[in-house]
Each structure stands twice: as structure tokens, then as C-alpha cells.
């Protein structure tokens, strides 16, 4: 299938969409993020356009000094078309806020799309590392290397009392946020998801639906992340996330087992109907695509579907998003055209794997 790629983008998607790694039956990816600000400049909110340009230049220079520049792609976002910025958002390389912001700002990301460095987001620097599966330790260590290299050439705003100083009081201290993306269809179907939310909150972690608004998550994708960044060390934060995630995984697996044991044909019916829709639909909106992909993913994990690789499911998740579709077609499309293009793409990607 032809791939009208984003210029400068590799045709394959990032490492985190591999569908591999520890606990990848439930955990899609683990992301570690550090918030950093350059000493001597106001935070982005209060920085003049000149100061933002200075920060951007200093950060690019620093990346050059630590020899990161050869292996990364650097984009100045104020010079990039809106649809291309949205493609970066859909690939989880930049935030919606950075895409929609104004003034000099940029992103630098590794070719494997594991490392991404946002410049002039709410903080001058947002460093993040994404790994597929539940792999907090390695994501953390990889990001530390980048952080430690940068701090030798770029002075960060810190205080002894409060650690790394950030624009938002919720990030001060370590500036570290670990977010684990989880696929929790059984907990959602069994309506146990609220209990998970409450338990996580009790342990000082936040749970939110990754797509969709409020508590209703599209595609049964949720994100669990640490809330506190001050008063505990990086390692303590890491340990607390590593303590809570296995508990969620265990309940999800329990619920999956229950669904299977109680009413196997119901589960098979849901999964195979979803696959039938994906294989045959002529129009698919995002929400519909995501909910059927969620069932397909569950079917693959439970051994009910064997001829679709997980990587393909993950790719459809991203390539079926509105900006990726439009970028692929090379033109803006109205919602109906997008629904048609999405259905065509999904059918083609699944046909490549049917026997």
C-alpha cells in the first residue's frame, strides 16, 4: 500500500507502536517526561517573542553541543503548516498546546520517535521518552542520559528548596511525570473502571481517558500518571508507578478471564463483529474505528483472532486519526470524505493480513 508520508517522517511509525515489551497485552506504552526551564529567561507565558526566539536558539545550540542533532529531526513549529503540526500531535510527539500555540517554538525528536523534546511549550523544555509496553525503568534511564547531557551545556532554573522550577505548580520538584497508556476493555465492559480511578487517586495517581472527553474514553484507552512531583525523588516516583500498574493489570486480566469463562460466545461475538465491521465498512468515524479496534485488540490478546498483528492495530489507531488521513491524501477533507478514506485505509491494511 502506498504511503504518502509526512515529509521528513520515516514511513514506519514510532517504536512505541511496536506492540512489544513487558505486559504489552494491556500496556501500550510507557512515557517519562521531564519539565525544564532555562535559567535567566522568563517562562514561556511571560517571555517576549525575542526571548522565546533566544530560548529556541539556545536549546538548538545545546542539542548540537551534545551531538544529538545528527540523530534527531528538528522542526520550528511556527513555520510548519497546521495539518503537519496536528500530525505530530497524533503521533504523540508534541502536545496540543504546543501545536496550537504561537511564536517561536519547536520540537526535536529521535528518528525512532522514542525521544521528543518540545521547546517553548508551557516550560522551555519538555523532554520525553516513550517505550512500548510497560518499561518505566528503561524509559527513565534513557531520558536521564539526555537530561544529564543537556544540563552540562544548558543551565536549568532550579532552587534547593523546590528543585526544578516549572511554570505550573503541579510539575515543580522533579518535573517528572510518568504516564502509562493502558488498554482496559474488560474493566470498562464490566463497569469496574470507576473503582480503578478511585484506587489510583487514593495512591496519588491520576487516571484519564486518552481519547474522548471526561470519563468516557474512546477505544478503552486510559492513561495513568503520577500526580505528585515534589517531596519525593525520581526513584520514589518510579517505584510508586511500578507498584500501582501491576495491580491494575491484574484486575484487567481477572476481568478478561471472567468474561471468557462466563460467556465465551458473547465475547467472541463482540470481537468478530468488530473485525467484520473493520473489514467491510465503507465509512468509519474515528470513534467507531477506535471502539472496534479496541475489541480487535482484545481478541488478539485473548487468542480469538490470529491473523492480524498487533502492530497493524496500533498503526490503524494513529493513521486513522483525522490529520494523518488528510496528510496522506495531501488535501483537507470534510468529515464524510475522511470517514470514507478511513474505512478504505482500514480495509486495505486488514486485507494485507487476511489469508
Amino acid at each position, binding site marked *: 500500500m502506498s504511503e504518502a508520508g509526512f515529509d521528513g517522517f520515516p514511513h514506519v511509525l514510532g517504536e512505541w507502536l511496536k506492540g512489544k515489551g513487558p505486559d504489552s497485552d494491556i500496556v501500550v506504552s510507557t512515557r517519562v517526561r521531564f519539565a525544564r*526551564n*532555562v*535559567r*535567566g*529567561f*522568563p*517562562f514561556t*507565558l*511571560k517571555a517576549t517573542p525575542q526571548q522565546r*526566539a*533566544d530560548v529556541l*536558539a*539556545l536549546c538548538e545550540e545545546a542539542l548540537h553541543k551534545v551531538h544529538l542533532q545528527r540523530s534527531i529531526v528538528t522542526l520550528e513549529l511556527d513555520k510548519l503548516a497546521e495539518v503537519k503540526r496536528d500530525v505530530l500531535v497524533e503521533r504523540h510527539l508534541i502536545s496540543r498546546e504546543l501545536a496550537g500555540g504561537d511564536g517561536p517554538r519547536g520540537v526535536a525528536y529521535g528518528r525512532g520517535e522514542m525521544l521528543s523534546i518540545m521547546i517553548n511549550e*508551557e516550560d522551555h523544555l519538555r523532554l520525553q521518552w516513550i517505550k512500548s509496553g510497560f518499561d518505566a525503568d528503561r524509559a527513565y534511564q534513557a531520558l536521564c542520559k539526555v*537530561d*544529564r547531557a543537556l*544540563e*552540562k*551545556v*544548558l*543551565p*536549568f*532554573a*532550579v*532552587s*534547593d*528548596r*523546590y*528543585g*526544578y*522550577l*516549572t*511554570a*505550573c*505548580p*503541579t510539575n*515543580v*520538584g*522533579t518535573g*517528572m511525570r510518568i504516564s502509562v497508556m493502558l488498554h482496559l476493555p474488560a474493566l470498562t465492559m464490566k463497569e469496574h473502571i470507576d473503582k480503578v480511578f*478511585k484506587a489510583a*487517586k*487514593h495512591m*496519588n495517581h491520576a487516571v484519564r481517558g486518552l481519547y474522548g472527553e*471526561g470519563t468516557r474514553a474512546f477505544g478503552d484507552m486510559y492513561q495513568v500518571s503520577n*500526580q*505528585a*512531583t*515534589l*517531596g*519525593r*525523588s*525520581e526513584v*520514589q516516583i518510579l517505584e510508586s508507578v511500578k507498584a500501582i500498574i501491576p495491580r491494575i493489570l491484574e484486575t484487567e486480566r481477572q476481568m478478561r478471564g471472567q468474561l471468557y469463562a462466563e460467556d465465551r460466545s458473547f465475547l467472541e461475538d463482540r470481537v468478530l463483529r468488530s473485525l467484520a465491521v473493520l473489514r467491510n465498512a465503507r465509512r468509519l468515524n474515528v470513534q467507531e474505528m477506535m471502539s472496534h479496534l479496541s475489541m480487535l485488540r482484545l481478541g488478539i490478546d485473548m487468542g480469538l483472532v490470529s491473523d492480524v498483528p498487533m502492530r497493524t492495530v496500533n498503526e490503524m489507531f494513529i493513521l486513522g486519526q483525522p490529520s494523518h488521513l488528510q496528510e496522506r491524501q495531501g488535501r483537507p477533507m470534510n468529515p464524510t470524505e475522511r470517514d470514507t478514506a478511513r474505512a478504505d485505509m482500514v480495509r486495505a491494511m486488514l486485507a494485507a493480513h487476511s489469508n
Partner: protein
Amino acid sequence: MDCQCCNRKPAQVRICDVERNECAEPFNVCPDCFTLIKRYMFDMARPLMPTADIIREVQSLLGGEKSLALPDQPGALAPLGVESVPACPECGMTLSEFKARGRFGCARDYEVFAEHLDPLFERIHEARPPRHQGRLPQSAGEPELVTRRRRAAELKARLDAAVAEENYELAARLRDEINGLEKAPEKSQETA
């Protein structure tokens, strides 16, 4: 659903009070009202209030108003802020603006608003005392560009003083030094 605070705009934000880990019935409000509600929530000068009470206060505040164009005018809600705290000399952030936006403007704010921060951080991070436990960077000094600009600003202040004292010899020397400092960054901007 309409905003449960102003009853006019569509609700887009849901607020839940949590007590003993139980979520109470949520309130649905519009972003404009939420901006106002947030100020009460993060106002350290007040005890924690249930959302229902905050909404009642905001409603009485909005009572006679025709529009909700308040958010851009921090002064409009002056009684909530603690206006005795001076604005940050570096970025101009005031305490009430900080409370309204929930964001710091620069690193200096952490010193300027110091006495208001511990209770806030304690609540957000559930950390007592709210002190940094992690690592700190072993970084170099501030960027040369900043040093240069800071130095130029200092020299300008001295230049003004020298002119006021009619010490023209010193003033001329300072002027040359400032010119020298300001030339370098201009050049680097062109190549950037």
C-alpha cells in the same frame, strides 16, 4: 447541558468534590465560570470551600454583570487576592494573576511569592514539608547572552546615575562599554 453557574453558556468542565475518596455529584460549568471558580479554589487566603458554595459566590458576583468578560482583568476580583504582595520585578506577575492563571511567570516568582507557596504545594503534592527530594543538575552558569544583557542593564542604571551627577567622563566610558555589549548579540541574532 448549560453551565450550572451562569446558566447561559454550554458546560464543558466537570468539577467533582472528593471526600473520603468518594466523588460527589459533579457540577458542569462553562470555561468562563470555571476560570472564576478556580480562583476561589486556589486562593490560599480562604479555607477550602465545597464547590456548591463557590458557585453560589460566583453567581452573586456575576449577579449584576451583563457579560463574563472578567477573566482578563485580574483587578476585577481584587478582594480575593492579597494585593499587598508586590509584583515580580522580573516578569511582572502579580499574586492575583498567578492565582487566576495557575502558572508562574518566571523562576523569580518562586521567591517573590515564597510565603504563599508552601500551603499550595503541600496540597497539590500531598507532601509535608513540600521540599525537593530528587536530584539537582550540575550545570554551568547562566547563558552568556543573559549575562551580557544583565550586565548591560546594570551599566545603563549606572550611566543614568553618572549623567545625573554630571560625571560625563564616567558616562562616556559606560556608554562605550554598553555599546560593546549590545553589539555582540545583534550579530548572533542575524545568523540565528
